[in-house]
């Protein structure tokens, strides 16, 4: 790294920190963002965390009610933070975002090192790879990230855990890698599907080091199970009952709270006929998880890309998605900047994201406050947002495979390529 690159990094992080600190200063901005249903969900809302904390501190069991659905460890952390001045809570969120971005640059560097022996396209030989600081900058200045951070949505801790899990897995640190993925699963359940790509990353060079792959996989899985049960036990001792399982994972899986969000679940299950509710619930949840196996198999040589793909699937098909989830997979995206030239719908997806960001608050206002629109307005926007994300993911996957095809078949460059 040169001095110039350090300066770039310093500037980006400094600007991101200052911008967040200044915006945090305006309490009406943070309050507005903290109550937007696109940004916070029942399982990540800071208001609900405050309520849980208040009940916990006043001796009312926090999970014996319908308001609080977050992990007990968050309660403990924020109880400790409560003893410090208010500014520390804000700093926690800002620093979490910055640490996340910092590890993102490290992940980018490691990915570039891993791929430097990988064959490349002829046109790419002359161009430089993306600067890791730019990846961090794209994450830090993504409006979705900023909004999510300012809203004090606790999804940021899940995102940090996933990033740290990826980082340590790429570093081949088995126990830390599995710990952070276990932590992410503990916090919001869905990152469970990231276990497969993480294991793939961890056993990446096992063969070359002459280790037995099977035993490596088993030790990773064992570590994951161990960490996860450790976290659950710790939570049990913290709140003194297993009620939290139902109040956190039960709520994520069974969807009793139908507050709107940017996902597909809420309106579908508001409108669902009672006798089919459980059937579709099972179908939807299985649909979210089912991709973890084929994606990991097909992309076994690119586990970081399957990490991107699976976090994208998570952000679209989880039961309580928010734009904070999208900011995570969009953070992984620039690491694979070389595939962008193969993508066919960049203009369309960009437009869809802009369109949704502008229209979703308007349509929600028309439905809930003005009364001049109905639920279908907002539902339509969530559909468009989902389609935008789907197109982006499918297009990126297509580009990844297409580029690989060209790398392995440079002689077929002038032929028409079709899928068969």
């Amino acid at each position, binding site marked *: 790294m040169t001095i110039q690159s350090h300066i770039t990094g310093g500037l980006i992080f400094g600007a991101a920190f200052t911008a967040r600190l200044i915006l945090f200063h305006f309490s009406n901005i943070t309050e507005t963002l903290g109550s937007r249903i696109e940004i916070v969900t029942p399982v990540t809302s800071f208001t609900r965390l*405050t*309520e849980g904390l208040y009940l916990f501190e006043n001796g*009312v069991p926090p999970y014996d009610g319908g*308001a609080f659905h977050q992990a007990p460890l968050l309660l403990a952390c924020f109880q400790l933070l409560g003893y410090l001045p208010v500014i520390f809570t804000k700093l926690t969120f800002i620093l979490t975002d910055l640490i996340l971005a910092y590890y993102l640059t490290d992940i980018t560097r490691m990915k570039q090192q891993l791929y430097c022996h990988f064959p490349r396209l002829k046109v790419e030989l002359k161009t430089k790879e993306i600067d890791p600081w730019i990846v961090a900058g794209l994450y830090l200045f993504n409006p979705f990230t900023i909004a999510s951070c300012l809203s004090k949505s606790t999804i940021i801790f899940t995102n940090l855990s996933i990033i740290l899990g990826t980082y340590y897995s790429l570093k081949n640190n088995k126990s830390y890698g599995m710990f952070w993925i276990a932590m992410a699963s503990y916090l919001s359940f869905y990152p469970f599907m990231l276990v497969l790509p993480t294991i793939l990353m961890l056993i990446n060079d096992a063969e070359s080091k002459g280790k037995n792959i099977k035993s490596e996989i088993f030790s990773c899985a064992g570590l994951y199970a161990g960490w996860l049960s450790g976290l659950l036990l710790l939570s049990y001792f913290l709140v003194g009952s297993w009620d939290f399982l139902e109040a956190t994972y039960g709520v994520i899986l069974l969807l009793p709270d139908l507050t709107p969000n940017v996902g597909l679940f809420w*309106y579908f299950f508001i409108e669902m006929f009672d006798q089919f509710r459980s059937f579709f619930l099972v179908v939807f949840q299985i649909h979210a998880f089912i991709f973890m196996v084929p994606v990991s198999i097909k992309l076994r040589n690119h586990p970081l890309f399957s990490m991107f793909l699976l976090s994208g699937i998570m952000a679209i098909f989880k039961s309580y998605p928010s734009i904070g989830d999208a900011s995570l997979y969009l953070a992984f995206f620039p690491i694979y900047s070389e595939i962008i030239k193969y993508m066919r719908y960049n203009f369309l997806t960009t437009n869809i994201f802009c369109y949704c960001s502008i229209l979703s608050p308007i349509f929600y206002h028309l439905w809930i406050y003005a009364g001049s629109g*109905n639920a279908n307005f907002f539902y339509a926007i969530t559909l468009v947002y989902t389609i935008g994300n789907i197109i982006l993911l499918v297009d990126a996957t297509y580009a990844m*495979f297409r580029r690989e095809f060209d790398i392995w078949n440079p002689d077929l460059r002038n032929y028409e390529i079709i*899928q068969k």
Partner: protein
Amino acid sequence: MWQLGRLFLFFLVFIFIVLKFTVAENFHHNDNFKESLTIKPLSDGKLLTHFQFNVRISGIKEGKTFNHYKFFPRAIGQIIQSYNARELHLTFTQGRWNYEDWGYPIAPSAGTGVELWAWLWKDEKLDKNWKSLTNALAGLFCASLNFIDDTITVQPQLSFRPEGSYNATEISTHAELRYGSLPHENVCTENLTPWIKLLPCKSTSGIASLLNGHKLYDSNFHSMSIHVQPVCEDSRCLNKQLEIIQTVSAVVDPVRNSGKRDWSLNQIFGRQLSQACPLAEGSKLEVILPEDCDYKLSPDADDVTHMDGGTNIALYNLKNLQLTTDISMTWKEDIFEYNLNFEQPRIYAHRFFTGYGQERGGIKVNIFNKSPNISVPIIYYDVIPWFLKLYLHTLKVQINGKEVQDNPIKDLYYQPAVDRSRPNVIEAELLLPPNSITTLSINFDKVFLKYTEHPPDANRGFDIGSAVISSTGEIVGDFNYLYDVVTRNCSEDTPRAACYHYSIRVYTETLLVSLPTPDFSMPYNVITLTCTVIALFFGSMFNLLTRGFVALQPNEDNKNKEGKDAAK
């Protein structure tokens, strides 16, 4: 042969005598029935009419069944016994008792709708008993009481203590309280008819014959209730009686019709009082006289009692009354002028919603203490249905619009709601400073309901039952004068109006909240559209993951072309 016949006759006579004695004994100290009608001109020209019917059955051992019914309604007796209830209070109300204009009601009123609370003896099927009790009462009174399910039922911890005689330790170890209210329930003649059928004289004679549905339901406020409770027979409470009190209160407005507050029984009920119920031990009509002296009561009262609080009560014994007498009261004035210095109660409250939009809001309660120099302890009780998600950390208390150091909340019991299974309950013990307005406020999120959970008239909104403010039982300052007239065991001579015992409860307004609604005509569209989007992703991903890329070879291309050319 004739000897056998004589023996048989003798035997018959013997049986007859034995039977007569036992039955007579049973009748002798079993039931007694009293009826009374109280009329009170209110300070804003309206007229409160309050019917009360008491039946007492003596020789009751708690937990033991009884089978002899004389005046005590069998339907209620059987319900009480089969569901193991110790005390039962059921009130049907329409309209709001206007505390600021009317003072406190003579008998406990309730918030609009139906309110049911009961102390049930603890046993393994207590919750089943409560469920059955609501269902049985629903059938008996043609009301939707069966809708009081788990999402509505509450166990108040501080409010709604038993109203009959009770032993605190016995109650806390052997009985449990259940409370449920349906603020949306309409009250009408189909509820009144079964209620009247429980009376010993039905509506054929006595003051119950004045209960005319047309007039009763044409009033500003009406409340109909049944209270079943054990009372002590003697001062040491060795023997207990079971008492059923049936009341109907209605506030009618004579000023609306004539511009004057003059009234007569015929005019307000549209019926004549023919005679007292012959089964009643006492049958009285009382008029609580206003403080001004310009009125004329005709015919003259049998007796006028002076009460401690300065009120006079005119008493008519209906047993001695001439048939078809019309009692009336007239003032010497051409037109009624509204009194602006009306009788204000010491404690009253208003509750309202704050905020706008269908996403979130707040509840605010102003509790007024008008006593000039006495702090009053009260219990605030509020049940908020689960579809409003309360945030306890937003609970704020202000006194006269300012935050205070000395928190007036002395004790707080809070039960957070669970979606689709139980409501939020707030019970707070407050000490209201003298001459103050205490404001409680709390914020909530509105829950998005499934489309099947909305009622057919979804955009009308959901009713939220009244909050209840009750006295704590400690007799403090200004509540004193109310307690003075309240005595548990009334002697025969005291007017009935003076010995109604109840702990004071102030009910706030019921509220109407509108929740965000989905589009009810959309289920199929939503299912198809959402599934299409999911299929779009699944299909494309499946395609990418299972199919590889191949180059379209030029020779194949040419062959195809050649083939086509040949065909031409």
